[in-house]
């Protein structure tokens, strides 16, 4: 029987534990803490954090427990990530939640959502310089798209081995938007600019809102066909919402589907960060480049907004350029907060939503373009 005990003890975590797993357990706990105590994107950080814990419990390989072993429960749930199925389903839910009205009211603000995607391509160059392969570099660049599902989708196509670190980096920086963006925003704008107030956008009719997802699908997928899986589902969800006669389907998309998929995506992405696979030099590169990507994207949005003001009669508040990075709706909220620090009577939230959601479209197109270049 001592044999059995010994065998069992040698299978317990205590015998198998690795220092990298201990580090990751701390990381997982930190994620959960930030989600619960600091309210940083709790819907993402809590499942991911717990997934990190689950993925870094020291288990014997060969027992079918690890997410990387065929036949394990986690490996089945992980298929939705590796096959790129979860991100489009999440996009459908987002579509069924999002009101595109402000964007439809002032389509010129969509340019800000385009400008902020420069971060993606600049980081792509940076990653190439550091010696990453083109597929990896593209996946790293997309972190600057500030859109978790898009990043996971592209990475699952171009650099499946990096799903863990890239997803973690993307979601971390998205959660840290309220920390990362304000200093950059203050650096690139003057106090006078931050005080600019904007006019209420016009009312958008129901018909416009119904037509938009159809036009949006056709145009964006004619121009960038590879954006179809993400944008197709985004616009589908939105059409189900705006049609109103399909309310119960929209309801399923924005509750049942997105919530279930969010749990499964979060926990499996978290569990894919096994210490021995995750804690590498590459991951550090990814995190550094990801932060750069975020900063550059924010800056590009701000600078472009200032540029637009040179041509506009009715000036826009350049802060809303920072919302072009996506990270819906957190970066729009941050824009609002920073503006209110200057003038508590300035309400930018609604205005910032336009670049914010066009940033989602922009990064999905960016992902599609990179995918089509590199396949």
């Amino acid at each position, binding site marked *: 029987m001592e044999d059995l005990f010994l065998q069992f003890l040698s299978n317990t975590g205590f015998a198998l534990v690795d220092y990298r797993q201990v580090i990751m357990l701390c990381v997982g706990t930190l994620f959960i803490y930030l989600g619960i105590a600091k309210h940083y994107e709790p819907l993402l950080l809590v499942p991911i954090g717990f997934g990190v814990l689950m993925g870094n419990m020291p288990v014997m390989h060969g027992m079918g427990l690890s997410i990387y072993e065929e036949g394990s429960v986690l490996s089945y749930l992980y298929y939705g990530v590796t096959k790129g199925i979860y991100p489009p389903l999440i996009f459908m839910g987002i579509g069924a939640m999002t009101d595109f009205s402000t*964007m*439809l009211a002032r*389509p010129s603000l*969509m340019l800000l959502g*385009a400008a902020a995607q*420069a971060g993606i391509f600049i980081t792509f160059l940076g990653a190439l310089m550091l010696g990453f392969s*083109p597929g990896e570099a593209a996946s790293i660049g997309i972190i600057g798209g500030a859109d978790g599902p898009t990043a996971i989708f592209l990475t699952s196509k171009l650099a499946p081995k990096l799903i863990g670190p890239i997803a973690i980096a993307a979601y971390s920086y998205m959660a840290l938007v309220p920390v990362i963006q304000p200093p950059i925003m203050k650096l690139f704008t003057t106090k006078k600019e931050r005080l600019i107030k904007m006019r209420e956008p016009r009312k958008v*009719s129901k018909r416009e809102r119904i037509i938009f997802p159809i036009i949006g699908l056709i145009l964006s997928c004619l121009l960038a066909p590879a954006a179809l899986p993400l944008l197709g589902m985004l616009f589908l969800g939105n059409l189900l919402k705006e049609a109103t006669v399909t309310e119960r389907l929209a309801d399923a998309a924005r509750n049942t589907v997105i919530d279930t998929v969010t749990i499964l995506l979060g926990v499996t992405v978290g569990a894919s960060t096994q210490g021995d696979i995750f804690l590498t030099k590459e991951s550090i590169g990814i995190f550094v480049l990801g932060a750069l990507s975020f900063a550059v994207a924010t800056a590009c949005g701000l600078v472009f907004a200032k540029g637009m003001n040179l041509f506009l009669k009715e000036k826009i508040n350049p802060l809303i350029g920072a919302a072009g990075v996506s990270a819906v709706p957190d970066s729009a909220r941050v824009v609002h907060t920073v503006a209110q620090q200057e003038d508590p009577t300035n309400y930018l939230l609604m205005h910032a939503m336009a670049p914010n959601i066009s940033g989602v479209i922009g990064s999905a197109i960016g992902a599609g373009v990179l995918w089509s270049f590199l396949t």
Partner: protein
Amino acid sequence: MQIATLIEQVSAHNGWNMALAGMTIVFTCLVILALTISRIHKILDLLDNRDQLRLKMREFFVGREKEKQVASLLTPALELEAARYRRLTPFLGETFSLKKLIRFAESRGMTNPPPEKTIRQLMEVGLIKKDMRNRFTWDDSVAK
């Protein structure tokens, strides 16, 4: 690592071109999308106005006739009945089932002429209209 090597690594993978082309395409896409979107409500307005225009023209040519036709059916007696039935709307809601309308009418003693007959006449005149879901509404365009 030397800067030359860094640049080399980008060029080796055609990086500069991909980045520039990528950014341009993203921008173009969103510009075209923005331009199109900014037209949607104008086109919709135009379509609405066209309908109004057509409506006006039709009214001019056809309208009189139709009015006369309705007028011939819409006797003063029926108009009076219509007004009485109309007053039940607050209890029935904007769209209602005929069953309920009849029950309400009967419970208020409106039995002469019998509700079934009055309602049939109101439907012939077009004052009561049926929608896709077999619910009924008052059509005010005829009422005037």
